């Protein structure tokens, strides 16, 4: 019975004793004789599953077993010989035999010998390890057969599996059915050619018990695949979670194997007390006829081992192994946090045994997760060599170097350049460095909570790497202190069983970390000061600064863009700072204000490409990232333009409104100037309302909301960034009329049109003034000529002046009408605007209903009915 012998050494340590050597020889004999390839390698395979498990867990076992083996192998001979003896005595004992014996004998005579239960029991032990026995084997459906089912025309070819383990020179693996193979049941075979009979009841028991073996093998295969040192691919390497799962499974399997060993021992228990048999057996082994040699290591009948007993013993494991196998099946598909989630599902099982057992698995498996978690929330370090945590390094930024960014004392040199070169680092650290992977979050943590953990670690990480050393030291101290107070230990042990405790720990850490980070931003890096400064100088809230800047820069910017020199601009900014209240601002802030020249198109004037910018560096730029600065840029562009137009208009007002009082005698100019004044008044009104709207509703209101946030300091850096973004959005939506609606955005162009109308009005008005002066001079000259003081000039250009005046009058009128219709369009557009705050600009512009908010046919032509009639005046 070479197969059986062949398997033996597999269980034992192999060549440790001389007796096993003999056995190996017999095994090779058996191989050639019975031509059973499946058993061939087992003899010397050092990587045999059971052996691996055994040698690791039960060190002394193999030794004792191999001794036992040598004993039992000789017993086998004895048994065989006793069988043949029995036949001779058959007749004699017939009467005294029980009915079952008679039945069996009858069957034997019919050529159907019942398979000896003891043999089957021995086979069963193999089956329980997922190894084919001699008489009972797993009936497999190979990969090919499966394919054949799908496509019956397939022809079998030796296919080498892609993922097959490399051959290590020890021949094909024995019995290690892979996942490709499907176990259909148990085949009972007769290797010796004699038909044997196995009762259906027994078959059933064997099949049922064999499940354990299949499952065992599946689990075992999984462990093997994970621990194969030849796998170099880091992605396929066993991750931390898998490793701990394997560890757990191995321990469990060792238990299982220990059970099998015990069972085996049970089977052979009484052999030793039959010395006679032993000798006999040895004689048979020396028998010259090899064909009659039936070497069997079967449990003695007296051992008391039965299938029923076996089932009873193994019953306990069947649930465990089933569970393990399902876990393993899941583990093949998922990893890390997701695997923990899957296992967690089992802990919800109704069966208390399954539940407890799953909990044990989970305990073990979630260890690395909680280790990562702990390091993440306590020190902001992502300890996750296998990418299985739900926080992961963003692959996009993996390559970037995140050094600690510290403000360098640069002695006044190179500071600015330095700032811009690493402009986006803090923002990247915060926003991009880590990503949250929902699928890796164990399901016993809900997503919000996961986000919280994510943010906590991120905050700490940011403090650590984005801010200064001292910040981190202080934070660490604070965290440690609070932990001490709260938990009275360095760090609470985190487990999945204590979700409440976990939550409280994380809540606390989150609170400290995010508060700390916000504090660092607000107190140490004076975020509000910077934002305030941006509001003042970039958004021109500091009117005195804006005015001076405008006055200083104005003449320069009137020239073509190509003539602009940056150092002139910076000088002008410096002057504006020195002369306005900005000089009381700290140098820390002022040195960040700088001029920027955008690339100019050929015909641009200086106005088109000048921009004032505010430089920020890490870690403030986590909030003031490039996108935010770009928004500020846009806002500045518009507000700067508004200031330019309104200054132009004001100087026009100052220059002409009262100056014309001295030309009152020029009667024909009175009307046109009156008209000009009226148009001017409309424009002045428009400008002041528009500017007031931009600054009050557009900037001051969102600002006060943002200040509220900064005072409360709730939430984490993300919320701070979000608050700042919504502050920016609110400003853009009102100042720049940014909107999702294209039509509404088009209103901004209408404003632009109105602004350009004002500029052209100022031009006309200026020409008109010059013409008035010319006319006045002409009249004076004529008067003087009449008196003979000066000679009358040859050309009295009265007609020409008249013509010019009329032209200007026409242009003026058209300009006024255009402006009016532009405003009407604007107000109408604003009247139907979806944003009620933007709508208010319409109300401001048409406070006395001079422009219709809604298009009505009657309104467009006449506004002759003032509200005086129907309203009682309170005045």
């Amino acid at each position, binding site marked *: 019975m070479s197969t059986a012998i062949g398997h033996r050494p597999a269980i034992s340590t192999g060549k440790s004793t001389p007796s096993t050597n003999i056995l190996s020889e017999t095994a090779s004999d058996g191989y050639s004789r019975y031509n059973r390839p499946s058993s061939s390698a087992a003899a010397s395979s050092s990587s045999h599953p059971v052996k691996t498990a055994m040698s690791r867990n039960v060190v002394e076992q193999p030794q004792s077993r191999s001794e036992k083996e040598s004993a039992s192998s000789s017993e086998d001979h004895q048994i065989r010989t006793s069988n043949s003896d029995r036949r001779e005595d058959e007749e004699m004992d017939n009467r005294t035999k029980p009915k079952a014996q008679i039945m069996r004998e009858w069957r034997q005579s019919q050529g159907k010998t019942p398979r000896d239960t003891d043999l089957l029991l021995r086979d069963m032990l193999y089956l329980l390890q997922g190894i084919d026995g001699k008489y009972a084997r797993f009936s497999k459906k190979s990969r090919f057969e499966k394919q054949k089912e799908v496509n019956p025309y397939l022809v079998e070819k030796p296919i080498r599996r892609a993922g097959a383990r490399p051959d290590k020179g020890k021949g094909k693996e024995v019995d290690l059915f892979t996942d490709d193979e499907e176990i259909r049941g148990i085949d009972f075979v007769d290797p010796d050619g004699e038909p044997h009979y196995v009762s259906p009841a027994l078959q059933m028991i064997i099949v049922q018990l064999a499940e354990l073996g299949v499952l065992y093998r599946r689990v075992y295969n999984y462990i093997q695949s994970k621990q194969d040192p030849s796998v170099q691919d880091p992605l396929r390497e066993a991750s931390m979670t898998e490793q701990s799962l394997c560890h757990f499974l191995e321990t469990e399997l060792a238990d299982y194997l220990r059970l099998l060993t015990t069972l085996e021992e049970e089977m052979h228990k009484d052999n030793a007390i039959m010395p006679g048999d032993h000798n006999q057996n040895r004689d048979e082994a020396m028998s010259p006829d090899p064909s009659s040699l039936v070497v069997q290591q079967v449990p003695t009948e007296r051992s008391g081992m039965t299938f029923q007993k076996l089932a009873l013993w193994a019953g306990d494991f069947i649930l465990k192994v089933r569970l393990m196998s399902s876990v393993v099946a899941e583990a093949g598909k998922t990893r890390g946090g997701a695997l923990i989630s899957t296992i967690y599902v089992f802990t919800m099982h109704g069966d208390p045994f399954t539940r407890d057992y799953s909990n044990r698995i989970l305990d073990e498996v979630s260890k690395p997760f909680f280790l990562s978690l702990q390091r993440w929330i306590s020190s902001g370090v992502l300890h996750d060599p296998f990418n299985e945590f739900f926080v992961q390094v963003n692959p996009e930024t993996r390559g970037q170097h995140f050094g600690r960014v510290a403000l360098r004392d640069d002695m*006044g040199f190179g500071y600015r350049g330095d700032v811009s070169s690493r402009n986006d680092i803090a923002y990247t650290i915060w926003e991009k460095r880590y990503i949250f992977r929902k699928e890796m979050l164990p399901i016993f943590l809900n997503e919000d909570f996961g986000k919280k953990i994510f943010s906590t670690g991120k905050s700490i990480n940011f403090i650590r790497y984005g801010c200064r050393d001292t910040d981190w030291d202080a934070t660490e101290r604070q965290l440690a202190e609070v932990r001490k107070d709260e938990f009275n230990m360095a760090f609470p042990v985190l487990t999945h069983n204590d979700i409440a405790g976990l939550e409280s720990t994380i809540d606390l850490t989150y609170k400290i970390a995010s508060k700390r980070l916000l504090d660092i931003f607000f107190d140490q890096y004076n975020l509000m000061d910077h934002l305030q400064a941006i509001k003042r100088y970039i958004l021109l809230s*500091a009117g005195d600064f804006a005015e001076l800047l405008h006055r200083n820069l104005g003449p320069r910017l009137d020239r073509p863009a190509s003539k602009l020199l940056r150092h002139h601009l910076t000088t002008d900014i410096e002057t504006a700072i020195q002369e306005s*209240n900005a000089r009381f601002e700290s140098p820390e802030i002022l040195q960040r204000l700088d001029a920027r020249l955008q690339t100019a198109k050929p015909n641009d004037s200086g106005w088109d490409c000048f921009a004032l910018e505010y430089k920020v560096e890490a870690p403030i730029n986590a909030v003031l990232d490039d996108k935010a600065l770009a928004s500020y840029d846009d806002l500045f562009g518009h507000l700067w333009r508004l200031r330019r137009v309104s200054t132009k208009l004001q100087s026009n007002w100052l220059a002409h409104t009262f100056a014309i009082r001295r030309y009152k005698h020029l009667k024909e100019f009175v009307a046109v100037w*009156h008209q000009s004044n*009226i148009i001017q008044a409309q424009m002045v009104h428009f400008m002041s*309302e528009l500017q007031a709207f931009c600054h*009050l509703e557009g900037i001051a209101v969102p600002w006060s909301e943002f200040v509220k946030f900064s005072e409360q300091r709730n939430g984490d850096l993300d919320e701070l960034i979000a608050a700042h973004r919504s502050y920016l959005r609110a400003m853009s939506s009102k100042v720049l009329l940014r909107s999702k609606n294209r039509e509404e955005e088009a209103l901004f162009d209408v404003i632009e049109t109105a602004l350009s109308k004002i500029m052209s009005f100022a031009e006309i008005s200026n020409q008109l003034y010059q013409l008035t002066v010319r006319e006045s001079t002409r009249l004076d000259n004529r008067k003087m000529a009449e008196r003979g003081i000066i000679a009358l000039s040859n050309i009295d250009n009265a007609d020409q002046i008249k013509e010019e005046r009329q032209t200007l009058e026409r242009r003026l009128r058209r300009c006024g009408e255009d402006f009016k219709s532009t405003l009407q369009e604007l107000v109408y557009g604003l009247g139907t605007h979806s944003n009620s705050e933007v709508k208010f600009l319409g*109300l401001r*512009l048409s*406070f006395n209903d001079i422009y219709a908010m809604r298009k009505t046919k009657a309104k467009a032509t006449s506004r002759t009915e003032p509200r005086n009639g129907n309203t009682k005046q309170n005045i």
Partner: protein
Amino acid sequence: MPREIISLQAGQAGNQIGSEFWKKLCAEHGIAPNGTLEDWAIQGTSSLSSQSANTLAHMHPPSPTNQVNAAGGTIPSNVGGGSAYTHGAMDRKDGFFYQADDDHYVPRAILIDTEPRVLNNIRTSPFKDLFNPENFYLSKSGGGAGNNWAKGHELGEEGKEELMELINREADGSDSLEGFMLTHSIAGGTGSGLGSYLLERLSDHFPKKLLHTYSVFPGDGDVVVQPYNNLLATKRLVEHADSVIMVDNLALHKLVEDNMELSEASFRQTNQLVSTVMAASTTTLRYPGYMNNDLVGLVSSLIPTPRCHFLMTAYTPFTGDDIEKGKSVRRTTVLDVMRRLLQPKNRLVSTPFSQPSCYMSILNIIQGDVDPTDVHKSLLRIRERQLATFIPWGAASIQVALAKKSPYVQSSHRVSGLMIANHTGIHVRFSRMLREYDQARRIGSYLHQYKQYPMFSKDFSEFDDARQVQEVVAELVDEYKAAEHENYLDYGNGA
């Protein structure tokens, strides 16, 4: 380089109001009566030396050698001081003050009178060291103008050299002079006559500068010849001043009596009231915000056409903070304040506003700790309720300028407001002036007093010439009336 404003105060009323105004400014900027900064106001000063110290601080750490001005050291050297964020004292003093060599703040003020009494009062007051002693101008005779416009004008002519020298010196001392601010009364002799003379000279000399006046219009019969004085001065206001904030004595007294627990208001109290208004109207110039930081910005939106530049004011609340013996405070919200500003009883001009009259423009200067959303809501509410009527021929609205409250002045109310408005109903005031003049002229009373002065020596052409006084004021009335109607756009064609 702020936009400087030179303040001229002429006559008894002008000087009294003016000195109250400067007291108020000193209090608001933390300047002691002798011109030095109070200790508590030392942070964020705008002294020239601190300026230079600050410039240096850009390159070097603040040097301890700079001991002249403590301000240099008090500027927060790092942003973390927290002060930069609140900026309580971000004021701009140099529009109204300049700094002497010893860093004392000196008002850009010229005090002009024809009799020594009021000026001597100021010279002996605690504020005696505040003003530049050279800036006191007293006519040689020192006998006053005797409530005679002609005499006042004549005295101006006499002192022309010296006066213009004073003004030119002051103007040269400023980098970018924005304009002049004249405080005077139009009823008497000096403020009216000499004030008129100043207006003529200034508009001639400084055609590009704003001429802004605070003109006190008299109540009933304070002076016998006031109908003449009024009209003569008003003519100059129409033709030479660029914006006139009218203060009506009648309304002033009524206002003070309404608001105080007194049966009769003293001039001291009315002067305090006027100075409060003056101070309030300049807050946006002294505490720069995003808009209206200069006088042009302030008045350009108020005055659409050159002739209609007579502005009316209203102020609320008048409390003991501003005026002695004021009543206790009421609740002040932005809406309350803006609503009250539109009520006639808070106006500083007493004219019955008839039906078609309307606002050409309104500017509300709201001072105090104001939530911007409140302004927004108040404007909506006022529009809904149609509390104000506006011109039918163009866009007009209530503009709101938010101004800081001085951090140095404790006030019991949260918000205070000043309304400056251009209202067409103001023509009623001028119509009355014309009526009074007509009556007086018909009788021809006291005209002889004017005859002794060159302007009237030959005849009364100054009065009678078609293009003269009456006509000018009548035109003003006419234009204001025209502005109430929609066809105002074509007003120029008809005239």
